[in-house]
């Protein structure tokens, strides 16, 4: 990997970020970029670091074929290398031979527009373009180029770091920048001036506000001080969303900044009845026969292009409202929680629509009430409680102090490690992605049936130990997957469990992760599918 200085700015930035483990240094590198890059490149950098990627123009399967060809290796060997490196863009940059001379520096914007034009090319021309690029780019430029083609631009810079650097360079408040870059904007057409320096009022009509997120509570309740300053709500397990009604148009934005209006026609219909200039923060929940249902029911509504009548009838949803962010066209995020909730309650009462319900806020007379509420939260299909300071404004992003989430203890079960795959990113080349099985009886025979996959929860040291076990106890290899001697038992935690016809085990668990390694148990002592089913809450 040659580290020549003659590199395109953005590749240089990627390299500088890569060359430090210190957040401060990363911010400085970003600042340097935002000071020196062209305005067009700045806009693209903001887009890339906020998960707005250009559309993939070439299929990854095709990329692999070309890369293998250039590296003069068989495709299977490229695939094996990819599984070990854990990142396609990186693998290509590594196996394709290093060039002697780089082509003249390219700017990010030009590169992206070239890639866009690539769509118009036929296959032979596309291949020629790719090979020419790979032949002439140095390692970091090549890596970056491949990232742009393959999408998924996660390289150790959070959106928060990026907004911080932008704030430092422009002198604009970080929270305002976070707001400006929300929603749907096109990096091809918007200018740096329009996006960051002097956005026009109209630009905000289609933007959601940045969501305020809570940290998990890490202290005793009484350390929060006088309980009368606090209120609690249930923490609902659905899709956090903002319902926006402006200029006679209704939009629903998810917390992941996706426009999800089309998936919830009944909520759009309800939103139409609201006054213009209203923004409600809430949770989309499955709700039927007067009851909140499990997340599994909501899943039946997700990822559909068209929502049919039957689906609407069988799996209806509501918006459970937490907060009011805009009222009468006014951004009221600096009003306190108490005031905002008053407005919210009034709106819901006046609207009187079944699809909009309030998430009740309870006043607190003493902390033990909260503990009792927490202990029965799961019965209400809630995943815990939210504690909110009554005087808190609605902040931007994850901020400590005013809001806390207190989740219910997860459900747990002891399962056997059955399959493993190598991880990605910082876990490249280590077997860290596991499949777990539980015992089931098939005509008197005891077998392990897969019930969950999990990747998190062990320490680096434990991962290394399990990795070692897997390498020594592989039974069979299926491409990147290895079946492993069923010996190791882990306690798996999850948030919920429901019947599911899509899973071989007949059950689906939510957010499975490893709680701990049960070194004290052998695989025969692991739990059964029946044990898991007994936890279903209907």
């Amino acid at each position, binding site marked *: *990997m*040659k*580290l020549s200085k003659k590199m395109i700015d953005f590749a240089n930035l990627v390299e500088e970020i*890569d*060359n*430090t*483990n*210190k957040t401060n*240094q990363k911010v400085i590198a970003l600042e340097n970029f935002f000071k020196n890059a062209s305005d067009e490149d700045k806009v693209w950098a903001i887009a890339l670091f906020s998960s707005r990627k250009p559309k993939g123009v070439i299929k990854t399967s095709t990329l692999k074929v070309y890369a293998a060809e250039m*590296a003069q*290796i*068989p495709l*299977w*060997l*490229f695939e*094996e*290398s990819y599984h*070990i*490196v*854990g*990142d396609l863009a*990186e*693998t290509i940059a*590594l*196996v394709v*031979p*290093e060039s002697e001379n780089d082509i003249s520096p390219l700017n990010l914007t030009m590169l992206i527009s070239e890639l866009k034009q690539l769509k118009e090319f036929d296959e032979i021309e596309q291949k020629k373009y790719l090979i020419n690029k790979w032949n002439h780019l140095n390692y970091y430029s090549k890596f970056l180029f491949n990232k742009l083609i393959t999408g998924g631009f996660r390289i*150790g810079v959070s959106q928060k770091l990026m907004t911080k650097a932008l704030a430092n360079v422009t002198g604009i408040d970080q929270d305002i920048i976070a707001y400006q870059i929300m929603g749907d904007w096109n990096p091809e057409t918007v200018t740096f001036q329009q996006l960051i320096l002097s956005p026009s009022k109209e630009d905000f009509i289609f933007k959601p506000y940045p969501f305020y997120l809570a940290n998990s509570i890490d202290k005793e309740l009484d350390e929060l001080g006088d309980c009368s300053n606090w209120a609690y709500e249930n923490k609902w397990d659905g899709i956090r969303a903002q319902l926006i009604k402006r200029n006679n148009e209704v939009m629903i934005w998810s917390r992941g900044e996706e426009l999800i209006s089309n998936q919830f026609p009944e909520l759009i219909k309800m939103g139409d009845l609201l006054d213009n200039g209203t923004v409600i923060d809430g949770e989309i929940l499955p709700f039927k026969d007067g009851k909140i249902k499990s997340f599994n029911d909501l899943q039946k509504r997700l990822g559909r292009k068209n929502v049919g009548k039957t689906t609407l009838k069988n799996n209806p949803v509501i918006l459970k409202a937490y907060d009011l962010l805009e009222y009468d066209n006014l951004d009221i995020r600096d009003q306190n929680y108490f005031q905002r909730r008053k407005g919210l309650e009034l709106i819901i009462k006046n609207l009187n629509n079944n699809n909009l319900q309030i998430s009740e806020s309870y006043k607190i007379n003493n902390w033990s009430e909260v503990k009792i509420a927490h202990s029965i939260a799961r019965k209400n299909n809630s995943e815990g409680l939210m504690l909110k300071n009554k005087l808190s404004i609605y902040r931007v992003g994850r901020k400590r102090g005013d809001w806390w989430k207190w989740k219910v203890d997860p459900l747990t079960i002891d399962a056997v490690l059955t399959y493993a795959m190598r*991880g*990605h*990113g*910082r*876990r*490249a*080349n*280590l077997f860290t992605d596991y499949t777990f099985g539980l015992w089931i009886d098939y005509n008197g025979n005891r077998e392990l049936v897969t019930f969950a996959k999990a990747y998190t929860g062990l320490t*680096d040291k434990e991962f*290394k130990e399990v990795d*070692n076990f897997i*390498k*020594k106890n592989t039974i069979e*290899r299926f491409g990147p997957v290895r079946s492993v001697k069923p010996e190791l038992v882990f306690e798996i935690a999850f948030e919920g469990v429901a019947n599911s016809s899509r899973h071989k085990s007949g059950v689906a668990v939510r957010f499975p992760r490893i709680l701990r390694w049960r070194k004290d148990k052998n695989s025969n002592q692991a739990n059964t599918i029946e044990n898991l089913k007994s936890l279903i809450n209907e």
Partner: protein
Amino acid sequence: MKSPLLIFNQNGIYCPIANVYIDAWKPVDKVIISHGHADHSKYGHKFYLTHPNNVPIVKHRLGNVNIESKKWGEKFLINGVQFSLHPAGHVIGSSQVRVEYKGDVWVYSGDYKREDDGISTPFEPLKCNTFITECTFGLPAFNWEKQDVVMNNINDFWKECKSNGQTAVVFAYSLGKAQRLIANLDLEIGDILTHGAVENLNEVIRTFKNLPKTHRITRETKKEDLIGNLVIAPPSTHGSSWIKKMVPYVTSSASGWMTFRGARRRRAIDRGFVLSDHVDWKDLLRTIKDTGAKNIVCTHGYKDIFSKYLNENGFNAFIENTPFEENEIIKEND
């Protein structure tokens, strides 16, 4: 078919006719040692045989063991089997083991690399029928740059730390990588300071080879002695209280594993320099070609993948398991 000259059994790599082991991992009567890394020179054998440069290293590691030496190229017979040691270029005193019996020639590579690192005697390709090769980095993703390019990058890193008033820390294995860095970095920039584990080996090596001056870090070492200079320490010191006393410092690692961005992030170090004492993909293939061997035994590393590739390309490749594999990873990791 002839019975194999070397077999892999539970104790190590064994020559049944000569009744001698190579790099045995369990205690045996007689063993030939390829090099001084802990997983290859184990404690507890009754008799050791190795290259003269490796003798003081083995003694430093294992105490006063019963050990004799053979020069590179010097032929010796054991039960009618002819053995000789040849440079492997992995670390100082590292050897390949050539075994010949009735015209059948086997070569055990030990760990090796092809580039002359300026301190270990360079690898010498040997013709043989069967070549037992390591393939620690046997994947096309591993392609090393020339040593002077990497050393220049480390020098630049050092200069940058110095101009920022910081200490440059390089994590490197105490035997081999550390001396390779010491012999090749630019001492005009500043002084090289070493962790005790590194300096102990430097002292052993200085008894038979010149090494540039280094300074042992002790309790008396002051912060002013560190700033602007370069510290070489074993990877296990990363995150320890020992290293924390060096603030302000920037950490780096010199290892083949630094090829992977993920590996660097996992170790939470600032800079990774891809510098390995093992062969990369192209040198692995070149070496196999140079030996002329048709039978290739693949040991530690990506042996399944590599042997499959060799078999597709007209070789007769096998896999043998050694306990080196796990140690190798720990060696580079910890």
